[in-house]
């Protein structure tokens, strides 16, 4: 299927020309079913000791590109050269394990760690399977512990290697992933939106770790949809649009606006604005009422500790907070997906404890879940079937022509990139899967919308569109909206009332014009 041919011959001419190139991708193309071309002859060099930011809107091919470098996908055409010793050699990267053995390591949004094992056990798994650093199947854990301690000290990450992974916060898990990269001595680190969900302070800490790595001569590719982030930490920015490389610029010689134009084109870049959306003055009756709610997390620990909250019809209530402070569990409990330990929840006239998720959904409550792949879609089924499953609630037959119409409309409105309405959702890019879910749930919301991070993997233009749409519907259809987001900009932009969630408790309500610094203070106290 692929035209990449393994060869041990060395292309010396290239090696001479670019001494500090550590990896060179040449004419990489990749297509997926339907008329979707994910990558179209992309050529990109990565230098030793640099941080390269890879930007592009949803579905532009960023993830596909790094997944090819990490051996998850194989390219249809093109070749990859990696510096081995003093020369660049053509290589075939056939699997992540293969990539790791060539010194390439990827960290994605979702930490790839086994929750029930300790940090040391997780790292031991990687080391033994790769037989790195002299670790074999029977190497004692003590030796591995020693390696971990040495490395974590060296780059200044403080962790207890004997801690079970499920006890770690998201940030700590991502730190472990980066530590793992250090331990396997990766020359090239690929970060696929790995920092996206990290709270600001922790992100800054990670930047420091990345700078250290860069200064040690490691090369880092960072995928992000946050242009300011790219501007802050990268030395070069590469932009992909619709599978093509638009250009590579030196970060110091460009501006945010220039990068936006590269990403979205002149016309669409103009749509980007972070001005606070109009707040309304009048609000309707209480639609979501939460009283003294206590909820447990997946491991039986109390994570929501006595929350009182009211969302009125016609207003957007935003919950700011760092991931892992109970927002997800709170929202899941409100729609009836998670059992409550004690307390009361009413959505409309529905007593959630009694009627459960079915009762809540039946009155027209949209839910954008935090765990998208678990609660948001059925990956094997098409967009059409996914939309039908959530919208058709009665009758024996599914009115496919109606569903088809709705699907087409949503695909157009939200610019979901898909070959057809019948393509299984699993073939869509991460951003487009989120768009599908968001579009469907905003459509489903007749009385209320409960959303957890509704735009986190969306590019700027799409994210702003989604926020506008939610705001519009709140006003026009008298919807009650509750949004929890790790993106403080988002909360500040859309909320009529702001709360902060910290360690299972809710702080607020704060007025919509509360200064950013004050909100941040509550988030990290």
């Amino acid at each position: 299927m692929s035209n990449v041919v393994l060869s041990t011959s060395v292309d010396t001419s290239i090696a001479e020309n670019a001494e500090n190139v550590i990896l060179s991708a040449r004419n990489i193309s990749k297509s997926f079913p339907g008329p979707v071309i994910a990558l179209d002859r992309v050529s990109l060099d990565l230098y030793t000791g640099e941080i390269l930011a890879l930007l592009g809107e949803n579905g532009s091919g960023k993830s596909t590109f790094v997944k090819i470098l990490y051996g998850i996908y194989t390219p249809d055409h093109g070749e990859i050269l990696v510096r081995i010793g003093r020369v660049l050699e053509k290589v075939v990267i056939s699997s992540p394990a293969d990539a790791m053995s060539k010194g390439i390591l990827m960290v994605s949004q979702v930490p790839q760690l086994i929750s029930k094992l300790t940090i040391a056990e997780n790292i031991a798994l990687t080391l033994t399977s790769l037989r790195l650093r002299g670790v074999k199947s029977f190497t004692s854990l003590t030796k591995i512990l020693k390696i971990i301690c040495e490395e974590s000290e060296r780059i200044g990450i403080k962790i207890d290697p004997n801690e079970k992974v499920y006890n770690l916060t998201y940030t700590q898990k991502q730190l472990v992933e980066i530590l793992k990269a250090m331990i396997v001595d990766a020359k090239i680190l690929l970060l696929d939106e790995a920092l996206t969900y990290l709270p600001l302070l922790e992100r800054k800490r990670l930047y420091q770790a990345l700078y250290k790595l860069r200064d040690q001569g490691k090369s880092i590719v960072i995928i992000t949809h946050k242009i300011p982030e790219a501007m802050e930490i990268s030395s070069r920015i590469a932009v992909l649009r619709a599978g093509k490389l638009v250009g590579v610029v030196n970060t110091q010689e460009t501006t945010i606006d220039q990068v936006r134009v590269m990403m979205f084109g002149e016309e669409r870049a103009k749509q980007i604005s972070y001005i606070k959306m109009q707040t309304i003055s009048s609000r309707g009756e209480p639609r979501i009422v939460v009283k003294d709610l206590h909820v447990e997390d997946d491991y039986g620990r109390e994570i929501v500790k006595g929350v009182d909250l009211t969302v009125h019809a016609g207003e957007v209530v935003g919950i700011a907070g760092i991931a892992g402070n109970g927002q997800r569990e709170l929202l899941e409990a409100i729609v009836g997906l998670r059992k409550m330990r004690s307390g009361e929840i009413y959505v409309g006239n529905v007593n959630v404890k009694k009627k459960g998720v079915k009762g809540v959904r039946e009155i027209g409550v949209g839910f954008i879940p935090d765990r998208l792949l678990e609660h948001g879609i059925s990956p094997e089924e098409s967009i059409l079937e996914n939309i039908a499953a959530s919208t058709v609630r009665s009758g024996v037959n599914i009115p496919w022509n109606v569903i088809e119409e709705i699907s087409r409309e949503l695909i157009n409105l939200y610019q979901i990139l898909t070959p057809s309405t019948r393509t299984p959702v699993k073939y869509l890019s991460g951003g487009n899967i989120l768009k599908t879910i968001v579009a469907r749930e905003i459509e489903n919301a007749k009385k209320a919308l409960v959303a957890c991070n509704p735009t986190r993997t969306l590019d700027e233009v799409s994210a702003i569109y989604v926020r506008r749409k939610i705001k519009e519907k709140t006003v026009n259809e008298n919807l009650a909206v509750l949004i929890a987001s790790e993106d403080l900009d988002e909360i500040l932009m859309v909320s009529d009332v702001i709360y902060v969630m910290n360690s299972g408790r809710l702080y607020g309500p704060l007025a919509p014009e509360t200064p950013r610094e004050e909100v941040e203070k509550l988030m990290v106290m």
Partner: protein
Amino acid sequence: MLKRKIVPKYYTWISTVASLTLGILVYLIITLLAGINPLEVLVNIARSFISPSIVKDFFVLIAMGCALLISFRAALWNIGGEGQFYIAMIPGVLLTLFIFNPRYNPASAPLVILLVALTGAIMGALWALIAALFRAYLKIDEVPVTLILNYIAYYIVNYLVFGPFKGRYVYGYLRTDEIPEIYRLNVRIYLPMRGDPLQVALQGLTVQLAYYIALLILAVVVYAFTWWFFKYCRLGLYTKIHGSNPSYLQAMGVSVNHTILLAMTISGALIGLTGSMYLLSELGRIPYEIERQTAGYGYLAILVSWLSLLDLKMIPFSAYIVSALRNAGIALQVAGLGGVEQSLLLIGAILLTYSITRFLVEYEVRVEW
């Protein structure tokens, strides 16, 4: 080795054909090693593919393959086709032999037949429901439960034949009385069976088709139902989603437990229906040791469903192959080329190569050096 992101549609066909060819090849090599002339074996196998005698199995396996497909698509592994098939015959015997004596009211025969079909479906559904309840509410895996229920069904039916259902006009045989002719669903036609081999085969086919007309109708009806179920029915969509991500169903406010119960009972009902129709058109009575009366349609249907890669379009194709192979096994036995183990060996060889090709459909294997 890479997992394919997209599996081209024609791969399904290629893999099915390839697994068959390779399976037969493996089988031939084994027979050769056992000192049997592979050519003779091959001729017998080939002949069974064009033999009219496979129509009965073909129809039954289409119906049961579809029935199992409904539970398999929900990732509910109903291994209890056997039990649901036989248990469904109980109300049939009860109705035709004990309750509605045709001597008193022959005009009611169509109604009785409908009643037999209906009660058969209900019985099959209830039998499957037991396993579904265990699965839904006690989280007990349905595979061992359905499997165990097969044996319970065998023993219940055998007990009945041994005791309360024991026939009065059976010349000492252990079986129920013959179901009255008026309830039987066969159309008997007589053809001379003359002419060239093709003509004889066609005549044979006509006779078989007429005789098993009820099974033909059953296969068409069950197939059409299954098509509708997956294409249009809301529950069909829930069934598929249960097979791919039950958490999504839950988040949509659809009861996962009800989906399990419904998918399993519909599957069981269709098998029960098949069982009752089989009673009226083929068996005509229940003989003792019921489990020896068919080649285990409940198990063969699993093969049919898997061989189709859970694709409804492929069900007739795989039903045809499985019924031809089953008949090949019998033909080989008759020809003195081996015993029952010959057909088992053949099916085993095909399952083996099937698993390998199935793997190759989903994964791309590259050799690097």
